[in-house]
């Protein structure tokens, strides 16, 4: 789950990290009032969408006059913002954050993630503030400082010192203590809220050695949301694909893609490999759909329905290697979907494993039209043929 900048800043602020004072507005007529409450000029007007790269897409405006705050807000709200991360369609801006402008002396980058190789929460710190960290990694990786936090010890002050005293040129002395405190808070937020990412970029140091979080990202581990009920209300689903939302409701792993071959597979690895095969056969997958190991007949039915709701889909490939998921359950689910909504496109079925004979019999005995592929290679070829 991704939080918006304003939500992330709210969490940082409550943990004692200094953030610019700001106001969230959802209608342009709230903007004038915001300029009266918030220190300025200058003001910063920031589109609240989940995608990054907002600056490059015109989603962040630095303005000097109250009327500019209003016009900037107006031009953002309700319109689509296209950034390097939104895709060409862009995302509709529903909320705008108006903030006081902070005079920056130096900018840094600070984030916390779990490092997969070491299995440790890892703080990343860089003097290349304001830049995307991937960019810094690609162009000047020596500017990226990492500190692995041993989970058996937790955060300790020397972790902060290892990062701060590696800076060259050094951090202004007056900023050392505030930054240490920010780092400790970031760790605490990360661990307490089950984050997968806490990112402050830029982290600004002012002339008077205050340390500000000027932009912030927080992502939460979906698997841990059950113990953070208070965070659920922060989920802004308006940017999500409606089919993906529907799939989520039925506990199906569905991701919508650009192609025209629907795919239903059990197992994430096999699902990815099936997508790859469709591509190699000359077609394009319309979706990733892993129905998982424990799928019920009903989930299979729902899966077929969701695939078909995507009007671009011209054929469906079902690839099941029965393990926990039995082939007969799959077959029954597909037949039920056909009865319920009809299946308007060719269906290519490839099944192996547990109860495969029963599964094939159920399909055979149904009024369903489908192709049975002997193996994966044939399945892919059959699919490509349907759409060529």
């Amino acid at each position, binding site marked *: 789950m991704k939080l918006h900048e304003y939500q992330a800043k709210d969490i940082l602020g409550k943990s004692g990290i200094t953030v610019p004072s700001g106001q969230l507005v959802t209608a342009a007529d709230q903007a004038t009032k915001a300029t009266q409450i918030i220190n300025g000029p200058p003001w910063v007007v920031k589109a609240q969408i989940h995608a990054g790269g907002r600056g490059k897409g015109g989603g962040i405006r630095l303005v000097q006059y109250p009327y500019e705050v209003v016009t900037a807000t107006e031009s953002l709200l309700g319109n689509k913002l296209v950034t390097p*991360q939104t895709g060409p369609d862009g995302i509709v801006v529903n909320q705008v954050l108006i903030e006081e402008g902070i005079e920056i002396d130096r900018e840094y980058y600070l984030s916390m993630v*779990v490092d*997969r*190789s070491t*299995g*440790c*929460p890892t703080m990343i710190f860089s003097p290349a503030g304001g830049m995307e*960290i*991937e960019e810094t*990694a*690609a162009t000047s990786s020596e500017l990226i400082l990492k500190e692995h936090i*041993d*989970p*058996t010890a937790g955060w300790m002050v020397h972790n902060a010192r290892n990062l701060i005293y590696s800076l060259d040129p050094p951090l202004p002395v007056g900023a050392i203590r505030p930054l240490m405190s920010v780092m400790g808070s970031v760790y605490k937020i990360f*661990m307490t809220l*089950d984050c*997968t990412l806490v990112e402050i970029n830029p982290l600004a140091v002012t002339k008077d050695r205050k340390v500000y979080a000027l932009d912030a990202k927080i992502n939460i*581990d979906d*698997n*841990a949301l*059950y*113990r953070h009920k208070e965070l659920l209300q922060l989920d802004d689903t308006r940017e999500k694909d409606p089919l993906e939302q529907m799939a989520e409701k039925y506990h199906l*792993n569905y*991701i919508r*893609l650009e192609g025209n071959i629907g795919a239903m*597979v*059990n*197992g*994430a*690895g*096999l*699902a*990815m*490999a099936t*997508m*790859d*095969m*469709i*591509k*190699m056969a000359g077609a394009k*997958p319309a979706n*990733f759909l*892993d129905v*998982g*190991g*424990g799928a019920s007949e009903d989930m299979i039915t729902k899966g077929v329905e969701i695939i078909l709701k995507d009007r671009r889909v011209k054929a469906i490939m079902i690839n*099941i*290697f*029965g*393990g*926990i998921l039995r082939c007969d359950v799959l077959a029954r689910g597909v037949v039920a979907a056909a009865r319920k909504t009809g299946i308007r496109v060719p269906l290519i079925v490839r099944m*192996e*494993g*547990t109860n495969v004979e029963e599964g094939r019999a159920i399909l055979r005995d149904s009024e369903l039209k489908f192709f049975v592929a002997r*193996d*994966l*290679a044939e399945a*892919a070829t059959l699919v490509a043929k349907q759409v060529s």
Partner: protein
Amino acid sequence: MSILVDEHTRVVVQGITGREGTFHTQRMLDYGTVVAAGVTPGKGGNQVEGVPVFNTVKQAVRQAGVNASCIFVPPPFAADAIIEAASAGLDLIVCITEGIPVLDMVKVAGFLRNRKTVLIGPNCPGIISPGKTKVGIMPGPIHTPGPMAVISRSGTLTYEVVDQLTRIGLGQSTCIGIGGDPIIGTTFIDHLKRFKQDTETKGVVMIGEIGGTAEEEAADYIRDTFDKPVIAFIAGQTAPPGRRMGHAGAIISGGEGMANHKIKALQAAGITVAMDLGTLGKTVQEVMEKG
């Protein structure tokens, strides 16, 4: 020979009274696995499929002499189950559970570091030494004893590969699903080291996917130290960046984890990478025949 498990493996199933626990206990017993105990707190004294149930792993160790665990408990309790099993002194823990919070696994990994207990998974199908024992949920009948080791981040994709191997007459020494999560107990390299020592194993099939850098690290290890043929397959060449492809660990992020990058690293290390899953079995056969 085989690695980590064999006919002396005595399994305790944690979460044995749950739906999946009971189902797969039956399947393991069918396969010939010695399931000597089950654990479900509060259900001690009962039996499941003839297997005695205990309240704690400690009791299962003391009274049933188990040395390996297979964990089916739900995600919120899985970290506790793993640490309980490790604290009770088990040699091997296979955690099937999918959906464990990442920070729970961070804690588990920190706890297990420098301990003797080996954790396979979580979010994995387990481990099987065909003809000897299986600790996990993979379909037994598709496996057959033989010279190939299989290490995989995936479940069904592995069954697919094993099935192809068996059909063309290439049996398996040990097949391990290391799990699809970002933090897992053991990686490709951990098991490659074991397979290096295993005289029965003549070659390794390595099944990776997008996300992380485990395949790249394995490529380095293989280039530098591994002396048996390795055939690799990487799933997810068409996966878009920034999206989690089913597995919690299958995500391209921060410019890291792309299939192409992994494939290049493996090829640069002299490893044959099968590009077509449909003919992977044949590719393995060709490489093994070349020797």
